[in-house]
């Protein structure tokens, strides 16, 4: 099969392709933005770099406000396994780290690093370039990809290093490079392949080495002949026989990971599974180019190509944009809005979402700014009841049952939607596009998906709370029993009197003993006829005093006196 790739260009490789179920043939609107070569966007004065531009944990800032940074310097490091770092797209000063508008369907604000560029665009010290990547250990190369903060540039923004980490039990035989770019209007991958095919091929060879694949298949839709030609030329120039361009028929959504794998290899990725389970890893062509930059040139991911198109933009074009550049600046550089502009969409017309305003930064995942006119993107009419025509099921490229999922999502029965494999839905919008009742089907699926995730999250939190509560109860019980044991011990000590100890107070006993001794002595003396000497030979005056005292004593304690006498 690899010989086929070495045929003379620009002849198309005769290679069998498979078809996937459903899909749509849409007017592609690609010509508008491919007329001019890609040009670098102007250096923006301010850049906003969201800490979360990828799937997974947000990045952790390693700079503080006031720091001077240089181009390519790490600003935020990845936190956890599934995360990606962020680098300074240009040199300048960190002005703030705090909430700013981000390109997200919620329209929420999120933490961003705000960078004021100094205009010098001075590079930081970069790691050593590795043109000899084939001699390097894949682990080293993967670490470099992680350092560079590379995420899937096709739109999902999943950290690439994670996807490149092999599972011991899942050997990879084929690397699929996704250059299908099936969504209308978007042309950034097309332009990249036309102008930088050598970088893409270089990246493909690195990726192949990292995952240990034998073959590389580059899938490109047949509406991009220039890109196909350029890629074949670059393959021939590299002399690599194990890379083949496969031309696939233009049909939306052939650029979906599972759909492209199906078209190129005929294999089906299992439901709820990943392509690695069938020995395939799929990467976008722009991701491959970014990997080549990181490995061969030692540069982190700080820019990407963004398509600006639609009837609402004066000069549709592709720009090489620094991550963090505000969309507003780019639109100004594309000649600004035309009077026909109806809205601004980030991404394509099928899977993109409307931005509430253009004061949002470009992120790693932002491939297209589409400003359609009212005619291009009409407001859908109010939905009508489902007539059960089944066209959605015919259009679904994943072979799901959109109608069933719709009923259950509408009824808010999340378990049932999952019985119909809701989470295999790629939200391509084919079902909603063909629906004669204009039901916003994808909206229902998105609602059900996020709702189900939230439920799952709540369940996990409840389990955590339950464990903590149980631990607390156990701890309190243990403390209580310890306290009781202590008390019991003390009580026992008090209850058992020591054998030799006097029952009464020793002081009292001593007094008693002394009194007894004195009484005995007195009695003994009286028996011998010895009286106290101080009562004989008294003067009459003294005698009177004694009598008076005796009378007083008798008056106060007569009984005691009687006893004594």
């Amino acid at each position, binding site marked *: 099969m690899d010989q086929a790739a070495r045929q003379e260009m620009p002849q198309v490789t005769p290679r069998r392709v498979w078809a996937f179920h459903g899909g749509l043939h849409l007017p592609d609107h690609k010509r508008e933005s491919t007329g001019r070569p890609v040009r670098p966007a102007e250096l923006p004065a301010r850049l906003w770099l969201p800490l979360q531009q990828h799937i997974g944990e947000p990045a952790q800032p390693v700079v503080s406000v006031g720091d001077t940074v240089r181009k390519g310097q790490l600003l935020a490091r990845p936190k956890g396994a599934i995360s990606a770092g962020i680098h300074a797209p240009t040199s300048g000063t960190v002005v703030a780290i705090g909430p700013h508008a981000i390109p997200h369907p919620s329209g929420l604000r999120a933490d961003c690093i705000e960078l004021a560029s100094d205009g010098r665009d001075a590079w930081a010290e970069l790691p050593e370039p590795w043109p000899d990547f084939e001699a390097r250990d894949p682990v080293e190369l993967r670490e470099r990809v992680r350092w560079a903060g590379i995420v899937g540039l096709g739109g999902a923004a999943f950290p690439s290093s994670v996807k490149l980490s092999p599972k011991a039990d899942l050997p990879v035989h084929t690397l699929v490079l996704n250059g299908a770019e099936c969504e209308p209007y978007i042309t950034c991958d097309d332009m990249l392949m036309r102008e930088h095919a050598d970088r893409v091929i270089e990246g493909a060879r690195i990726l192949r080495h990292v995952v240990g694949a034998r073959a590389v298949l580059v899938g490109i839709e047949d509406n991009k002949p220039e890109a196909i030609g350029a890629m074949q030329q670059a393959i021939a120039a590299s002399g690599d026989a194990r890379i083949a361009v496969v031309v696939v028929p233009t049909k939306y959504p052939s650029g979906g990971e599972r759909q492209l794998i199906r078209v190129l290899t005929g294999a089906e990725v299992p439901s709820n599974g990943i392509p690695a389970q069938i020995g395939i890893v799929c990467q976008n062509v722009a991701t491959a180019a970014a990997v080549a930059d990181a490995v061969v040139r030692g540069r982190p991911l700080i820019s990407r190509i963004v398509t600006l198109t639609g009837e609402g933009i004066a000069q549709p074009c592709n720009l090489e944009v620094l991550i963090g550049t505000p969309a507003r600046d780019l639109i100004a550089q594309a000649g600004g809005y035309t009077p026909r502009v109806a809205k601004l969409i980030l991404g394509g017309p099928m899977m993109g979402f*409307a931005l509430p305003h253009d004061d949002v930064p470009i992120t790693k995942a932002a491939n297209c700014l589409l400003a359609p006119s009212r005619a291009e993107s009409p*407001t859908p009419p109010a939905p009508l009841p489902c007539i059960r025509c089944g066209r959605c099921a015919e259009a679904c490229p994943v072979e799901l049952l959109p109608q069933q999922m719709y009923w259950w999502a509408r009824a808010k029965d999340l378990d049932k939607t999952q019985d119909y494999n809701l989470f295999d839905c790629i939200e391509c919008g084919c079902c909603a596009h063909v629906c004669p009742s204009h039901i*916003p089907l994808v*909206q229902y699926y998105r609602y059900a998906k996020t709702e189900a995730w939230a439920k799952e999250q*709540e369940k996990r939190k409840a389990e955590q709370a*339950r464990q903590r*509560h149980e631990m607390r109860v156990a701890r309190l019980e243990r403390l209580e029993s310890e306290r009781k044991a202590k008390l019991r011990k003390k009580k026992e000590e008090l209850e058992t009197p020591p054998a030799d100890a006097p029952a009464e107070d020793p002081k009292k006993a001593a007094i008693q003993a002394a009194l007894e001794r004195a009484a005995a002595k007195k009695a003994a003396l009286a028996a011998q006829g010895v009286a106290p000497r101080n009562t004989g030979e008294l003067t009459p005056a003294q005698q009177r005093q004694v009598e008076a005292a005796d009378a007083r004593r008798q008056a106060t304690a007569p009984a005691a006196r009687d006893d004594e006498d």
Partner: protein
Amino acid sequence: MLVAIGIFTLLAALFGLLLGYSARRFHVEGDPIAEQIDHLLPQSQCGQCGYAGCRPYAEAIAAGEVEINKCAPGGEAVMLALADLLGRDPVPLDAAIAGEKPKLVAVIDEVRCIGCTLCLQACPVDAILGAAKHMHTVIASECTGCELCLPPCPVECIAMLPLPQTQRTWKWPYPDTARPAIATQQEAA
């Protein structure tokens, strides 16, 4: 006739022994139904059901002592799940707990806290950190929002705040059937 009686008596004795043996051999500790109910409850341990935590309430439901509509943080969803599990008819939520509340988290006003440790003792999930005469603070990720720390606080320095919505907790709204598309919804917003 006698043979038949003999056979059946023998069989009865045999099965009786078998049942007796398996009852001992495969004995299940605790009440599995209470366990299942407990797993459906939100575990905030708030006691609004009148029991000292989720587990006691689960046991009371399992024993049939109490209705399934007393869980305030769980709301209707939990009531329906319980009805489903137990095969009972759904009942309207108890009037005392009706009205769903947003998710809350306790926050201690650090200026007013006197370090009395009373809230520490009240927290059912040990989500408050502190020591006597030292400032206390709530571990937000562990707080279940049960509000049990509010009454013991002598200086009323604990406030229940709604959880802020972030990119990660945001959910797609239920489609507005009158205004369907995403784009149009946001235009209106």
